[in-house]
């Protein structure tokens, strides 16, 4: 065993969570190694120049949930952190009209009144009520979940804290929280609004990345998760990082290295080495071994528990829980290089509507019908599209006058009935392009290049099982103290020294760095206790 191969901590996976975890451990003085299978760090948060001069956010495309603590504690501004505010949301409608919301409350009210005078005062009520639910949830978000099955005094304290926290809230807030968490966004929105396009816009995010429709129980919960961002001082606000989410993970990589972490690329970990129930290192596919008493998996739960280690070393209950854990990827991406900005007929030559998201979700019914296909193993004929022409925000993304357009596509279920994604890849691209064309006539003539990313591609390239963007569905039975499995939601595993810090742990997926930050606290706490 050579000294050069020995570290205090090894992190498997250089996605954003692996980088954040590595940065925290290195900052605490641990000799830290981050191993990434690909030629670049970032995992599902990368930016690639797939067409000369055009930068594509291959997978994830916007930033919101990134915890403010991570930015501050890792001094990311010093290493190039540079968010860009997205001031607008544009929702085209099937009749050629549109809903254009922006940063000004009063202007938004006027815009909503065009669609429904009755809904004019509903938005304030809705935002206030949801804001209060978010406020109730934040303290749960930023803490290690209590182990409700634990027997130690510390566990009892954690549970008492949770009950106390929930118990101190107003009944209406708790009730709204439960209605959102367990119910459908469609029911919840019906209590406030009548405008179809407004409901479509508000419901769209409630299905992101998860195999639910807006009328399904559980969609309320996804919508809450998507609203948890406190980015840039605004609740639920989204932004675009300079250079895309890949620009952001490059900043994280620089920060991790500045704190002393070493990053090795093209280092595919085959498995974790264990000895007497204790992790002692990892072996790469090429046979290289690295040693450390702390090994952290930044991969999803299926990989963490069934690929990197031998299942026989784990309790049967845990193995079963991981087998049951739902991935069910339902999202795809289609990214375009465009010769010019598309025109929206009702707005003539205007382009100010493109400074944020353009959401093809004109009504709840449109979304629910898109979901129908997924239930039966097929992709939507008219998919929900969450798009953004990012070059309007960051001109470095495309040559002058030209644009890149990122389209997040739902639904595209990983498991297709009667075909496979290698056969359907191009058809999916055509479906998406046709849908955009429907709202933006002439769109297809602008397309210079197209990249289609199916759930299978997500799995193949990043390793996210079944292409699930969150490393495991946002369904209530796999959140909080159940993520990824009962009793194992505190970043530890049954193998001593082997930890988990990926999106499959609390609070879950998205570019937020929270799982990795909480995991690092747990790792350092355990290490201090041992010393």
């Amino acid at each position, binding site marked *: 065993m050579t000294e050069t191969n020995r570290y205090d901590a090894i992190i498997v996976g250089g996605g954003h969570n692996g980088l954040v975890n590595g940065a925290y451990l290195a900052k605490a003085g641990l000799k830290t190694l981050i191993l990434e299978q690909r030629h670049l760090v970032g995992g599902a948060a990368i930016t690639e120049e797939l067409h000369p001069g055009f930068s594509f956010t291959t997978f994830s495309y916007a930033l919101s949930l990134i915890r403010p603590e991570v930015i501050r504690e890792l001094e990311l501004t010093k290493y190039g952190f540079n968010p860009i505010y997205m001031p607008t949301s544009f929702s085209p409608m099937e009749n050629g009209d549109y809903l254009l919301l922006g940063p000004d409350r009063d202007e938004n009210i006027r815009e909503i009144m065009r669609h429904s005078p009755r809904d004019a005062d509903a938005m304030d009520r809705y935002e206030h009520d949801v804001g209060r639910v978010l406020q109730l949830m934040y303290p749960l978000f930023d803490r290690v979940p209590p182990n409700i099955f634990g027997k130690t005094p510390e566990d009892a304290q954690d549970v008492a804290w949770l009950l106390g926290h929930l118990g101190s809230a107003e009944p209406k807030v708790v009730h709204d929280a439960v209605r959102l968490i367990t119910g459908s966004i469609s029911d919840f929105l019906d209590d406030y609004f009548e405008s179809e396009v407004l409901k479509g816009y508000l419901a769209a995010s409630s299905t992101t990345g998860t195999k639910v429709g807006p009328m399904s129980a559980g969609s309320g919960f996804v919508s809450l998760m998507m609203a948890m961002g406190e980015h840039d*001082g605004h609740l639920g606000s989204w932004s675009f990082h300079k250079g895309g989410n890949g620009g952001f993970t490059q900043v994280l990589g620089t920060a991790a290295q500045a704190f002393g972490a070493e990053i090795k690329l093209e280092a595919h970990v085959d498995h974790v080495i264990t000895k007497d129930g204790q992790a002692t290192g990892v072996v790469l596919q090429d046979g290289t071994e690295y040693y450390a008493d702390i090994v952290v998996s930044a991969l999803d739960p299926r990989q963490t528990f069934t690929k990197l280690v031998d299942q026989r070393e784990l309790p049967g209950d845990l193995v079963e829980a991981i087998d049951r854990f739902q991935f069910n990827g339902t999202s795809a991406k289609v990214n375009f290089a465009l010769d010019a900005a598309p025109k929206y007929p009702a707005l003539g030559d205007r382009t100010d509507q493109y400074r944020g998201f353009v959401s093809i979700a004109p009504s709840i019914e449109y979304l629910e019908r898109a979901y129908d296909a997924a239930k039966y193993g097929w992709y939507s004929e008219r998919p929900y599209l969450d798009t953004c022409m990012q070059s309007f925000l960051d001109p470095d993304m495309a040559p002058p006058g030209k644009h890149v357009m990122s389209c997040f596509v739902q639904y595209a279920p990983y498991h297709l009935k009667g075909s496979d994604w290698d056969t359907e890849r191009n058809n999916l691209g055509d479906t998406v392009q046709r849908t955009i064309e429907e709202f933006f006539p002439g769109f297809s003539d602008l397309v210079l290049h197209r990249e289609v990313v199916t759930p299978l591609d997500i799995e193949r390239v990043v390793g996210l099982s079944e292409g699930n963007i969150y490393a495991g569905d946002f369904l209530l039975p796999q959140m909080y103290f159940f993520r990824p499995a009962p009793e194992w939601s505190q970043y530890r595993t049954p193998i001593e020294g082997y930890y988990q810090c990926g999106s499959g742990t609390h609070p879950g997926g998205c570019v937020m760095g929270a799982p990795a930050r909480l995991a690092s606290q747990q790792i350092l706490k355990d290490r201090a206790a041992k010393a």
Partner: protein
Amino acid sequence: MVSTTPFHPRLAELNTTQLWTHWAGYLSATQYDIAAKHEYFGVRNAVGFFDASPLYKYEITGRDAERYLGGLLARDIRTCRPGRAQYTIWCDDGGFVLEDGVVFRHSANDFLLTAAEPNLSFLQNQIGSLEVSIEDVSAAYAMLAVQGPRSRAVIAELAPEITDLGYFGHVQAKISGSEVTISRTGFTGDLGYEIRIPADDALAVLDAVMEAGKPHQMRPFGDHALNILRIEAGLPLIGVEFSSSRYAFNEHDRFTPDELGFGWLLKGIDDDTRPFAGRPAILNERATGASRWKTVGLSVDGHAFEQLFYEAGLIPPKDEPPADWETMLYDEHGERAGYATSYTYSPMLQTQVGIARVRPDLATVGTTVHVEQTVNHVYTTVPATVTRMPFFTPERKTSMS
């Protein structure tokens, strides 16, 4: 009646908010876009332009011009070669700061001084027997600031001679047939340029700049965005950080260069060949350690700030625009520590930052001070760390490519 700058006809078309403020007697856009932050990010990520025409401008020429400025300005004008500019201050005999400005040197005997306040009679009164002439050329020129990482590309398109212009350098150039002066200066702490344009040509030059800026998504920015940018850049603003000592009613409203963080401008103060106004008093202040304050940066503990509000049952009002008032600071014993003259949410740092004056014993970087805060209509405080300024200073600000 309020005046309009030579750019106004075009700016009025661009100002979709119709929000204007009055600056030095001119209409000045508060914000062109409903989100001032969008304008702010335009500068930090691409390029924005700002109408700086209301600044006062004085042409200072004559055989003794350098000697004249050497005796007036606290920063050594002799170190400013032709083709260069200097940020500078001038003081009263008591060693208190009167005002600040930027001085451009065109040749051995030809200078231009810009200032936020009118100064003609003051400047003329200092001439004495020297051979100097001073002319107010404020209205003769419009000033256009073009700021942000892409500003070089935009301006180089029109005036390639700026490509290798160093920080605080300036050149003469021709844009749309107009003789302009382009300097690598600005008030945003970013890569940026300012173009001084004969008033009659202002619109033609602006149109050319806007055309060149199109592929770079250049946008106009107003006073709100500028204020966030300049605080992040740690740049003091007269009327906010300090006011002219000439108009102070008592000692609480006049400050020395060292107290305002201008000590770095006084390089070479020990050189007896340049007796400038206020020098003996400043030397005395330094010899006796009489400075009452130090100017520092403040960076609020974001986590503590959030907790303060969450625990009070509120959502933290993080994204607040610059405060219009002074914010009081306390030490760990609750004693007065000083006050922040500027205080804002910084989108780059994602926390509140401030430009503050603190007791010298609290000025060490890393010291904790407590910032006044109102929560549920009650005064409380939130911890902040004393930091260096600027808060945000990208390499591109001063780099050559």
